[in-house]
């Protein structure tokens, strides 16, 4: 009993000593208090911003996977004002607005009244385009940032990461993209923007003709997707299977990627324009060139082929029609007025499903298909198709642009292919549509069978893997 009692007393005394030991002062880890450090950080950031006689070159990516980078020249004053001049292609005027540096999630630079930069954050910016479906529904559903009221997704508040000799590094508050402010030294902001504008014009011209990324003797196809953004495509024998966004900014000497790109152990981050060669070249030897060599599947000089998903299961009657089209297109290509009289022209139609879903009990499949022409070793996209089909309805939309080639010489092919597709397919009352799924070697295949109502021996089977 006594033993237990003594044990209790000892326990409580120990507990009291532990709990009541707040007398000794804790040693500070930092010389300054948290508040003083925050104030100091703010002051350093503010002073760095206003300490740039010629201003700062700001390369800003509002929403990295969707859009490329925009360049601004910014001049800050100690009265809390900032003059922003956007790059010429931005089509916005220079503005004079206010900024402040404050403590939030770290030290934050806020552009707190409207300036040119805010155009990228304006929630109404892309609304009209949405209505015209310039942004795909895939964008809307796959990326939470892209929705009504997002605009280009830009920020106008940046968290300070670090201050260097010539650069200040920020991270945008909402989207967490890297924002680099580079002090302008050797040139004036105006001269830089002029040189950058000239470079932009060169790039636009080259990109409109189709560019390839060439490295280690291989080529990857690029499409100029949006303002200062390429998409890189890699193809297999059937169609497009991989697409990678490659956002960049245009500099006064070439282009600079948001993130270094590594393919087959070659890493590139910048390309300089080489005037004499008409290409953009990186230090590592990678180049952006206009299309030269074909994809691997088009190497045979005599072949010309049409692939449209996999219609080998279709009836002979349909395949006969395909052959007629092939022959007509081949004959058309012999016209010396087309493609400068070069006869080696082949046509390819590659398709792939973009969506399969059940809507209200109906199986719907969407297919995106490319129609391309190959001349010598260059590939030209001459049109695209968007197909949507269910068991009861077949919708077919053709879109013929000038393609990568950008010349009017493709017009006869447009009409040829258009007429053929229209005659064969685009007749709602001519075909009945059946959809079935089958499994082969563990893979699921979806077959869509279009059968002519007046002739059951004429059918097309689109086999989607």
């Amino acid at each position, binding site marked *: 009993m006594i033993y237990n*009692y003594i044990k*209790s*007393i000892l326990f*409580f*005394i120990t507990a*009291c000593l532990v*709990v*009541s*030991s*707040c*007398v000794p*002062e804790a040693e500070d880890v930092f010389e300054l*208090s948290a*508040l*003083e450090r925050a*104030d100091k950080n703010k002051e350093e950031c503010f002073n760095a911003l206003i300490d740039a006689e010629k201003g700062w070159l700001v390369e800003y990516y509002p929403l990295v996977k969707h859009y490329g980078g925009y360049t601004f020249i910014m001049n800050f004053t100690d*009265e*809390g004002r900032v003059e922003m001049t956007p790059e010429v292609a931005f089509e916005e005027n220079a503005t004079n*607005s*206010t900024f*402040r540096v404050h403590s939030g999630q770290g030290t934050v630079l*806020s*552009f*707190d*009244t*409207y300036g040119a930069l*805010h155009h990228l*954050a*304006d*929630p*109404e910016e892309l*609304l009209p385009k949405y209505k015209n479906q310039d942004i795909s529904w895939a964008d809307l559903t796959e990326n939470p940032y892209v*929705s*009504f*009221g*997002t*605009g280009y*997704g830009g920020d*106008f*508040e940046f968290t300070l990461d670090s201050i260097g000799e010539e650069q200040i590094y920020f991270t945008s508050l909402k989207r967490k993209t890297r924002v680099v402010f580079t002090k302008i030294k050797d040139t004036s902001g105006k001269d830089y923007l002029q040189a950058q504008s000239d470079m932009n014009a060169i790039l636009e011209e080259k990109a409109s003709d189709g560019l390839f990324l060439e490295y280690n003797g291989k080529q990857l196809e690029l499409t100029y997707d949006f303002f200062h953004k390429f998409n890189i495509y890699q193809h297999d024998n059937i169609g497009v299977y991989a697409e990678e966004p490659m956002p960049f900014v245009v500099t006064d000497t070439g282009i600079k990627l948001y993130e270094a790109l590594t393919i087959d152990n070659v890493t590139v981050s910048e390309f300089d324009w080489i005037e004499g060669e008409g290409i953009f070249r990186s230090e590592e030897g990678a180049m952006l060139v206009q299309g030269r060599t074909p994809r691997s599947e088009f190497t045979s000089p005599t072949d010309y082929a049409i692939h449209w998903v996999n219609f080998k299961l279709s009836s002979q009657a349909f395949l006969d029609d395909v052959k007629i089209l092939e022959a007509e297109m081949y004959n058309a290509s012999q016209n010396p007025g087309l493609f400068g009289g070069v006869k080696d022209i082949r046509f390819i139609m590659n398709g792939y499903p973009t969506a399969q879903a059940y809507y209200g009990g109906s199986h719907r499949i969407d297919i995106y298909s490319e129609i391309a022409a190959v001349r010598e070793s260059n590939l030209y996209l001459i049109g695209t198709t968007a197909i949507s089909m269910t068991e009861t309805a077949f919708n077919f939309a053709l879109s013929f642009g000038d393609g990568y080639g950008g010349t009017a010489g493709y017009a006869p092919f447009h009409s040829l292919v258009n007429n053929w597709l229209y005659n064969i397919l685009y007749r709602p009352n001519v075909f009945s549509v059946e959809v079935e799924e089958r499994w082969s070697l563990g893979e699921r295949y979806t077959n869509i069978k279009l059968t002519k109502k007046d002739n059951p021996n004429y059918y097309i089977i689109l086999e989607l893997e």
Partner: protein
Amino acid sequence: MIKMKNLLFVFIALTVLLTGCNKEEDLGESRLDTTTPPLSELDQWLRNTFLPYNLEVKYKWDDFEGDMKKNLIPTEEDKVKPLMDVMDKVWIKCYEEEGGDDFIKSYIPKLIYLLGGAGVNPEGTITQGTAEAGRKIVLYEVNKFDATEAARINRFFHVMHHEFAHILHQTTLYEVIGYEAISKGKYRSDWSNVREANVEEYLGEGFVSPYSMSSRDEDFAEIIAYMLTRTRQEWDDFISQEGANTEKLKAKEAIVVDYFRNTWGIELFDLQALIAEKIEEITTVVPEEQPKYISPFKLQSDCAQLCSCQEVVHD
């Protein structure tokens, strides 16, 4: 034994209480920066104009004031003074004149926060303004403000009258039972599906707008906003147009007019006339700092008139 336990408790309690911090540190001056930031000419003007009403106008970005779920942008500085000048003349001074000095100073919100762009909602609709507990009004799309056209002014003051109506009825309730009975069963959550062009769908049911179908209080605030952004004649024409249920709208008008008269001592039609008069004055005077906005269509018609006059002269 119990005594021993008590003694032990007292001992522990004293140990805990008496062995606390034994040093008092001088906390010194506050490290928080409470100095007034440098005021621009615009800041000074806002202070001088609205301080008598204890009204703060925030036009610089402050993410704590806006709706954090939306993508919003700050105002253009150049838009602030023209808007707030008109706000003073058309909204504050008119209520002050009709309702008295105490009325406006008591119920005017304490903060107006201005935002440059629209408040776009996920379903594609746009919020033009919000009011919070009678204390704050957030006004969107300030960058679109143009002080030289009545329609553009009224677009903003529709929001102000609407939100101020909420402040008033949240302070003293109107005759809700009678009011709700007029359109009983017609309020609907899918009001955004009603198109403005289909006037019969809402005016026909005694609502001034699709939004007023969303709830009784929104209906009440919308009636007030519609009345105060129109002249008496325009209002009468509006509720008498083809397809409108004039009887229901008149019944709602009567409750609103009674509410203002009996609760706030304001004759709503007098206030309506005064506001219309002020807007007329503003839109007919071209401000020095802003060029008069001329619609491209107006320009074409002026040109056509001018051309035809010249032809007459030549003839």
